[in-house]
């Protein structure tokens, strides 16, 4: 009996060495361990043996069974590993450098910069206001203290419509309505498209974007104005900008200022961009003229406020190095599709 067991082991090992596919291994498993397999048959034959023999032979047969099981498992694992390796070795390695599609759409750069500004200002408690582009003479001029014979009202600067309305020349046209809407205190920004009746060239457009802001409360001062402008511009340019104010005249403010920032190209050392002055003129601002407050229903004896006007279009050109302003309204996707991110 013992010889039969050893013989079976020997023949199994011989056959196993020849079983190199998972099917062959399975066949072998059935032949030895299946319901009618050689090892199973041996175990079945034990029932005729004596109790002593049963114990001894049972141990031998079970040992054989365990060995067969282990070896089969081992063999099948080896075959699977080899098959996996063959599959891997045979696989195509994809060329990741091939050109691929997946172009996203694009935002107009004005949208990108406008959103950035809106975020900064809403975080400082400003509301964001929208306002029409076609306005009345009252909104655009009279309500913001532009006198009747001011040159800005001349035909060569303003687009007039046949019904007497006009295309707003500055975002200030919204000031009166916003002051009336909120009264004091009030913090608002109002981005918008403005129009000037002029011939276009690389640096002049008749249609461009501005963003104006006002802040009105008790005791708003020039000192506050400088603080806010510096804080806001440092956010916009993502660096600590230096600002300086110069006197400037705009009918809607008194005192009025031109605000310069230190040149971003040369850092203030002087270069061709800043005409070697180290400073770049960026935005007009000032303390809201008492007449403008009054017309907006705010008592100038009780309240003061500041206003500023940022050239959104100009900011975009500075930020992205756009040299020809006309590209922005051209609808030319070769230019515009580049602005994918916010």
């Amino acid at each position, binding site marked *: 009996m013992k010889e039969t067991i050893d013989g079976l082991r020997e023949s199994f090992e011989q056959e196993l060495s020849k079983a190199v596919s998972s099917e062959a291994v399975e066949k072998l498993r059935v032949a030895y361990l299946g319901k009618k397999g050689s090892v199973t048959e041996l175990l079945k034959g034990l029932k005729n043996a004596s109790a002593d023999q049963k114990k001894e032979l049972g141990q031998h047969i079970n040992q054989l069974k365990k060995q067969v099981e282990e070896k089969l498992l081992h063999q099948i694992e080896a075959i699977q590993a080899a098959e996996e390796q063959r599959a891997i070795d045979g696989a195509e390695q994809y060329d990741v450098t091939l050109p691929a599609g997946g172009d996203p759409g694009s935002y107009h750069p004005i949208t990108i910069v406008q959103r950035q500004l809106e975020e900064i200002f809403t975080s400082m408690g400003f509301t964001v206001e*929208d306002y029409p582009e076609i306005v009345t003479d009252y909104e655009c001029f009279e309500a913001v203290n532009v006198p009747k014979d001011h040159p800005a009202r001349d035909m*060569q600067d303003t687009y007039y419509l046949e019904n007497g309305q006009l295309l707003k020349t500055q975002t200030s046209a919204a000031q009166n309505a916003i002051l009336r809407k909120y009264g004091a205190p009030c913090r608002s920004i109002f981005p918008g498209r403005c129009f000037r009746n002029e011939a276009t060239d690389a640096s002049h457009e008749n249609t461009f974007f501005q963003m104006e802001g006002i802040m009105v409360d008790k*005791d708003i001062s020039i000192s506050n104005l400088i*603080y806010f402008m510096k804080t806001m511009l440092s956010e916009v340019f993502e660096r600590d900008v230096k600002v300086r104010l*110069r006197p400037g005249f705009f009918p809607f403010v*008194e005192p009025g200022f031109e605000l310069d920032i230190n040149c971003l190209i040369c850092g203030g050392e002087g270069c061709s961009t800043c005409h070697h002055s180290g400073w770049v003129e960026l935005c007009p601002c000032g*303390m809201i003229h008492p007449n403008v407050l009054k017309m907006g229903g705010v008592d100038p004896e009780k309240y003061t406020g500041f206003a500023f006007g940022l050239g959104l279009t100009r900011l975009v050109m500075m930020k992205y190095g756009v040299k020809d302003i006309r590209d922005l309204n051209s609808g030319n996707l070769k230019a515009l599709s580049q602005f994918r991110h916010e």
Partner: protein
Amino acid sequence: MLISMNWISDFVDLSGLDLPALIQRFTLSTAEVEEVMEMGRDLRDVVAGKILSVENHPDSKKLHLLKVDGGDKIYDVVCGAPNVREGLIVPFVKEGGMVAGQEISCAKIAGYESHGMCCSEHELGISADHSGLMELPEDSPIGKDITEIYAIKDTVFEVDNKSLTNRPDLWGHYGIAREFAALTGRELRPLETVSLEAFDQLDPIAIDVQDQELCFRYTGLKVRNITKNVSPVNMRIRLFYCGSRAINLLADLTNYLMLEMGQPMHAFDCAKVDRIEVKRFPEAFSFTTLDGVERKVDENTLMICSGGKPVAVAGIMGGLDSEIEGDTDSLLLESANFDAASVRKSSTRLGLRTDASMRYEKTLDPEMTVPAIGRFMKLLLDVDPEAQVISRLTDVYVKHYPEVELTFDKAYVDRYTGIEIENSRILDTLRSLGFGADCSADRFTVKVPSWRATKDVTIKADIIEEITRVYGYDNFAVSTTLSPLYPQKKSPQNKTDNFVKDILVQSYQLHEVHSYIWADAKKAKSLGLEPEENVRLINAQTPDHEVLRRSMGPTLLAVLQENRSFAAEFGVFEIGRVCEGLLPDGLCSERKKLGIALYSRVKTEKELYFQLIEMVKALGRGVKRQEFQLANASAAYGWQHPRNTAVIMAAGRTLGWLCALKPSVAKNIDKKAAVVCAQLDMDEFALLPDGGLTYQEPSRFPGIDIDLSLLLPEGMRFADMESAWVGMGDSLKDVSLIDSFIQNGQKSLTLRFAFSSNEKTLSKEEVQPVVDGVVEKLAKAGVALRG
């Protein structure tokens, strides 16, 4: 405007100060300086040299061989100037010296060595005259440096005229000098003038200001026996440095005075103009100004006349006929003040902007006219002591500006500035600028000087500017406000705009563009779009751009057409404004619209049309959780497809439209591409209520899908079949479109009916009765199951 620091120094002593730093300070406190130029710094070893002898060059008709006494020695010089002659004293650059930035070394000219160079005024940089050598007076000290004889060295800076718009007082050197005095704390010297009271017994000039609306003041004086014709060199240098051109003594003096005081003056030849009327003419006529141009003067233009004959356009330019010429020996001097807006408008109409009109436009101080004549006489008599005044100073003063007096508290200043500025500093500043200023118990009383009172300083806030600009904004301590902060919500309009942009860019790869609010007639025509009637601009740059656009369609179609080479398939959108005609109150009906336009050479028009529908519906679902409904509609514009135009609706409102294009228009854009477009009213969209969200427990059990392939009878739409399954039980959760095609002229749809239950796994048997019910209803409507 160009400012000479030498000239400024006539009125304020700036010695010992750093001029560049001072000019920088001027930028920060007064007006923007655009450029600073150092004049006469490119001269070296240029002396008064005497030409001792002149010999003809043997081989040249033009050249001469000179011996020039340079003070230190005699120089051999080859010279080609036409006015060279023995005994003449000229500016002479010694060998090794420099002129116009160029070093003069020994050079051989036509075979002869030249050891220096005799100069013209142009070469010295003090005038444009290069007709010959500058001739120096006979008593000039030989060998003395030319820059010590004449004020050639100077610092000149250019102020941005725009930044002087509101400062009529800064249009002359004296006003600028006042600023420097205030900025440095130094004293401003008074202008030296001649008192004209002595001539009060003489006859007045007949000055008749007929137009008292536009002429505020007219002051005149007659002078005769003018014997000199050429202005002194230093005066000519200043004029040249400040952008003027020397002409003759009288013309130069009026220019000089204007540059000094900012008061334009006109000198008429007394022989031609001996009386003055100021008036407008009832009808347009031709008038030749002294630049020799014949101009049409209309009835709105104020004129200076003499004996009824026009002699000058008031405040702008004199007439050719009454011009002062070199031999004029008597003159009638005009020093006047005119309405600023009238001068500006006349100058625009005539297309003639002069130094005078530029100043009058700024609303000059009428108080200046008399001192200006006193100053003119001082300058004239300094040059030509023989000149005689032959009339009384005649002054017609029509309009006086009111005196402006302002009072305010220290607390007002503190509130506006946000910093502490001492009372004494406030008083010093205001007084140095010519304001009358007093303070008692923190209450200020300020009298505005006449030169600031014409429009510039009228209210308290104007005084704040005077105090703070001289204090210097650089010196301000900056601080945040003490105002309370409130959280701010974005408006529905702003949110909707931004959400729409995000969906279109990020989910549908569209490109955002910007365009113009007017229609482009030329482009529209090239696309075969009929011109639209709408509100017009009355002053468009071109007639092609004068009609406001009614919709976003034509604009975006043109964008597609121009970008055909960009890609085989792309889409653009813009949120912009249109004008939908006039409202009953006569104002424009301006609306904010979203326009979308898609282009494809890959997809069929039908595919593109349905892609557009998907996009539009995604906007409704994404932004407002609203289901947009579409309905076929007739074309509102000629370029829309008459059969494939639809209106977009939600919550009972019409929001916009989408459409394919009329075939001929589509062809004009691109024969090989499909094009569709849509428009949504963003104001309406923003106001739509949010559809809200009712959370549904997800079913834990698998559902079952039944697909039905249907053959539709002619004209049947999906919407017509919906009644077959609506209300057929809770387990039918969704009906979606799997496939759609036309076979043998019959429309075929495959619909998927999705069933599920929250209680159990549904079996096919359980849903079959519902399906059978649907099929039965469909059959009644003529819809058959496809085999």
